[in-house]
């Protein structure tokens, strides 16, 4: 027995003498958002050397407005990626929701004046369409048991086709309902001047962060993504959790669509093209693992801001657009490499 204790102490001592890189690994493992926050701070400092206008409240207000839409979509995307899924149809759902809202308000032109729906009907209907889109994804993932990648690749095309059918491929230039434009208004916050859409996005993050951190449902989302069989055996209704994740995500995509309308003041079928991949980029750069179970929602917000900061900073530094794309690409690879490195630590 005494020998046992001796070996144990030796093992403990060995543990204490972890190298610096092991310590860094452990730290990143515990706080996955740490590396992305560091990237954000370092990048901001470097960019401020190249252009004195970079580190100003007005410029950061601009960046935040640019990332509000991607950030909102990334919030929902994070939930799905935490369950080890992925949603390639997020942008398509957002655009389809925004078109639904706009079309319902506008009404169908027939004889005489088109009669649209009241906003208090049209707006919830648009949100419902988003949730329904998510529910279709969730159904195919949980009941038909298809991989999320394939499911959402399919529904991406389906929602896109539905949107184009709805608009007949044209951009409806209509007088938008004032309520739908709410999130385009500006507010002053000290030196910052941002749209209400930015604040709305922040609020979405707050709510989701609370739910993930402080409710059973949040723990179950992590558990399902971590090890789905273990979660099932531990007594979690895995399918119910997955279904709810896809539906809540669909709702956030529809809310993101509201921000889209406020920003571009029309509902256009062409606004959501880049949203799909941009949202995934933000989540990945934010330190959430594509293998599920690890990451934080605020990481995705930081990830979205990093992409915005890189685009803006490189532009202000006079860097060609092509190189901006290159930088974002390298950033993604860097983020995934860090994730793999952290995962190796625990094996």
């Amino acid at each position, binding site marked *: 027995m005494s020998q046992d204790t001796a070996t144990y102490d030796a093992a403990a001592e060995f543990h204490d003498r972890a190298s610096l890189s092991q310590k860094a690994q452990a730290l990143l493992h515990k706080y996955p958002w740490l590396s992305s926050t560091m990237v954000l701070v370092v990048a901001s400092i470097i960019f401020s050397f190249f252009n004195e206008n970079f580190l100003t409240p007005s410029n950061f207000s601009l960046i935040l407005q640019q990332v509000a839409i991607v950030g909102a979509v990334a919030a929902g995307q994070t939930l799905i990626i935490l369950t080890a899924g992925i949603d390639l149809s997020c942008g398509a759902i957002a655009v389809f929701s925004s078109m639904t809202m706009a079309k319902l308000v506008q009404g169908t032109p027939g004889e005489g004046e088109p009669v649209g729906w009241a906003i208090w009907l049209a707006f919830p209907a648009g949100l419902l369409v988003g949730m329904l889109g998510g529910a279709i994804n969730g159904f195919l993932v949980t009941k038909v048991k298809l991989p999320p990648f394939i499911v959402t690749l399919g529904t991406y095309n389906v929602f896109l086709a539905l949107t184009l059918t709805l608009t007949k491929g044209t951009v409806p230039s209509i007088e938008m309902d004032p309520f739908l434009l709410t999130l385009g208004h500006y507010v002053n916050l000290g030196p910052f001047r941002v749209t209400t859409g930015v604040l709305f996005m922040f609020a979405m993050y707050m709510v989701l962060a609370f739910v993930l951190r*402080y409710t059973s449902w949040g*723990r*179950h989302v992590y*558990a399902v993504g971590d090890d789905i069989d273990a*979660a099932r*055996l531990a007594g979690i209704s895995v399918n119910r959790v997955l279904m709810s994740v896809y539906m809540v995500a669909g709702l956030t995509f529809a809310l993101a669509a509201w921000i889209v309308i406020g920003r571009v003041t029309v509902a256009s079928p062409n606004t959501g093209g880049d949203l799909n991949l941009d949202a995934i980029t933000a989540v990945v750069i934010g330190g959430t693992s594509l293998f599920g179970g690890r990451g934080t929602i605020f990481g995705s917000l930081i990830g979205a801001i990093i992409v915005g900061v890189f685009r803006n900073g490189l532009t202000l530094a006079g860097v060609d657009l092509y190189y901006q794309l290159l930088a974002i690409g390298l950033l993604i690879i860097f983020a995934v490499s860090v994730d793999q490195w952290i995962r190796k630590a625990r094996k």
Partner: protein
Amino acid sequence: MSKSPILQAVGLTKSYGRVVALDGSDLELFPGEVLAVVGDNGAGKSTMIKCLSGAEIADEGQIILDGQQMSFKRPQDGRHAGIETVYQTLAVAPALDIASNLFLGREMRKKGPLGSVLRMIDSSGMRKAAKEHISALGIGTIQNITQAVETLSGGQRQAVAVARAAAFGQKLIILDEPTAALGVRESRQVLKLIESLRDRGMPVILISHNMPQVFEVADRIQIQRLGKRAAVVTPKSHSMNDVVAIMTGAMTVDKKDQALKSVR
């Protein structure tokens, strides 16, 4: 001597396609005993406990718990009825901490409107309770209850899984190969855990390959062969060689020589 079983399975049958994993197997577990279930690979041990815990649904047969017939459809049903199972795969979420894992699927809510309206979970309460459960089992090696389970050793993970079962098991606990992946020292710990469970009056079903361990802790030993119950013996009535012989079909035991009743 004439105790009635707390858990009884009658004629459990389960096939996967054309493979018959369980072929009309019986099982009785009596109050306060450790029943070991042994058998060769493919004898239907794991399938049987999955049926008993609700992870699988038997094609035929009955499960009677405390005199009541059960029909489990999901693992939750078994848990709800008071049967806790520690699966071979442990069923822990590696990235979550010990306390979260202990309460996974049945988190405690905060009292008052924070819990009922906002549905907030009581993290500190769960941490405190988890600490109590872990120390009640005499597992002293876990210092930090907020440690992620993936940072634990195999034996400590096993201890967490057993602690979870012990904390919530009302009627009985099923352990599937709890020492298969463990070293000598850690196996000792788990065997001690089983004994402390029995001392607390908790009936245990232990699935194992390890004969010396089975003979050390079991009150009765059920031997499975080809999806059926071949015999039930006690460590006193039969030797390890006998059990292996029964397992492989080289030996049969007459019904009257079997330990079909409680021996405790």
